[in-house]
């Protein structure tokens, strides 16, 4: 049944996009959770919605609208957090809900919630267009490459930001890079799981991997593997049973999380 599903071009495109975006989300997720910025993905997906709506209204590719909105929004969040002395969560809430309000407003001008907008909210990976495959994959690969190249610096500042600074790492630049990467990641996974579930795509595999109580590098690798597994299984199941791929992928992630949760409790009862 696996091979049968994979004969089709649309399934191959879906699997490719799903795997690269899933892996990039899950790697980033480990850093975001440990730095207590887990909710930034949620905030940025709200912001992206504003961009999608604006894109549709002005006849630009929604993908581009989402990318512009989310990168600007992410930078504003970072700036408010660092200079405005707002708590991390408050700055996310303010920016993301303003953008969400704007998105709903624009969508209503543009003629309400049509199928197009809904497909960005809930994902439509089986109907993904070739240029979106390419765009999503390139964006996700950029994120993965960045994480690989800056692995040690990112690890260090996640462990202890002040010590990282003292050792000469430019923490504030990397902080900016991290929020931009998060914006890119959310937009790249928009077609796969949809904006409603993009944050889950970031948080769930990483949370499962963190339950396994390993070292840092192994946690990252397992997070990527768990995500790849969920995407592959989710796509095959949704193809065979005609389920919604985004929901199926996330539910598999949830089941993996529940399993790792109990595995870790059994291994170290407290």
């Amino acid at each position, binding site marked *: 049944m696996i091979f049968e599903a994979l004969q089709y071009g649309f399934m191959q495109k879906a699997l490719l996009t799903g795997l690269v975006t899933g892996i990039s989300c899950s790697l980033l997720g480990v850093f975001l959770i440990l730095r207590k910025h887990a909710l930034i993905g949620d905030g940025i997906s709200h912001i992206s919605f504003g961009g999608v709506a604006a894109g549709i209204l002005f006849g630009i590719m929604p993908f581009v609208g989402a990318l512009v909105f989310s990168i600007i929004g992410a930078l504003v969040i970072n700036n408010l957090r660092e200079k405005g002395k707002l708590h991390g969560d408050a700055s996310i809430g303010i920016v993301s809900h303003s953008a969400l309000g704007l998105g709903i407003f624009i969508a209503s001008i543009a003629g309400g919630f049509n199928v197009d907008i809904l497909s960005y909210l809930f994902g439509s990976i089986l109907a993904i267009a070739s240029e979106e495959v390419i765009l999503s994959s390139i964006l996700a690969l950029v994120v993965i490459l960045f994480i690989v190249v800056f692995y*040690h610096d990112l690890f260090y500042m996640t462990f202890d930001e002040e010590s990282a600074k*003292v050792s000469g790492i430019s923490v504030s630049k990397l902080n900016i890079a991290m929020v931009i990467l998060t914006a890119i990641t959310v937009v790249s996974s928009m077609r796969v799981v949809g904006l409603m579930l993009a944050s889950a795509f970031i948080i769930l595999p990483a949370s499962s991997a963190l339950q396994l109580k390993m070292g840092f590098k192994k946690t990252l690798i397992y997070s990527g593997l768990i995500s790849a597994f969920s995407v592959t299984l989710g796509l095959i199941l949704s193809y065979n049973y005609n389920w919604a791929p985004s929901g199926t992928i996330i539910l598999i992630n949830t089941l993996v999380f529940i399993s790792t949760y109990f595995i870790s409790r059994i291994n170290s009862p407290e």
Partner: protein
Amino acid sequence: MDQTIVEIKKMNYKFGSTLALSDISLEIKKGDFLAIIGQNGSGKTTLLKLILGLYESEKSQISLFGENLTEFNSWNKIGYVPQKAIHFENNFPATVEEVVEMGLLSGKKNPKIITKEDRVKIANALKEVDMLKYKNRRIGNLSGGQQQRVLIAKALVSHPEILFLDEPTTGVDTETQCKFYELLKNLNSKGITIVLISHDIGRITKYVTKIASLNQRLEFYGSHEEFCAWDKKHSHAKSHTHNLCPNL
């Protein structure tokens, strides 16, 4: 041997409107083992963070290795063990080896590749603090004192010329503390300059070469002997420095 490593000239520092440090002038020379003492809130941590460039302002009054802090970038010469070093969560996913690796690789260019020689250096640093057998354990699964040793190995692994430690023995048992001070003394005798913030003045006096007593101002700065003479004069006014120099 008389190279000046840290130099501070007439520095003040405020948090908003509260003065934390006032009129601090200080020179730390190569080979010093300096203890910074003072009550809670006297500005010890603030002084250290200023020296390490963690606060943007006041950088112009501070020099490291003869270079103004605004231009300084040889951070690999500096090792730092922060106060409350155990502020990461106990379930932080890092092995002992990975933590020490951080200290070693931070001086390299990205992407930072770990070599065979690096592994040897990491093993040696862990051996030095007697933690090699735990290298694959998660840092959160160690006791507080063991974690502290790992963080010292992390600070030492890049062979810094000066080591800053902010109350490194908080939560460490007496026996381990003594071993730890011996370790610092040993490092110091190999030429590493050490700056140690401590409340444990009674125990450290026999190890250190200089003492700085802070109370917003630098109340005292000098050798151990001078400190005892100064302390005798002032001890009637203070309680926290009682009984520090029983032998003199």
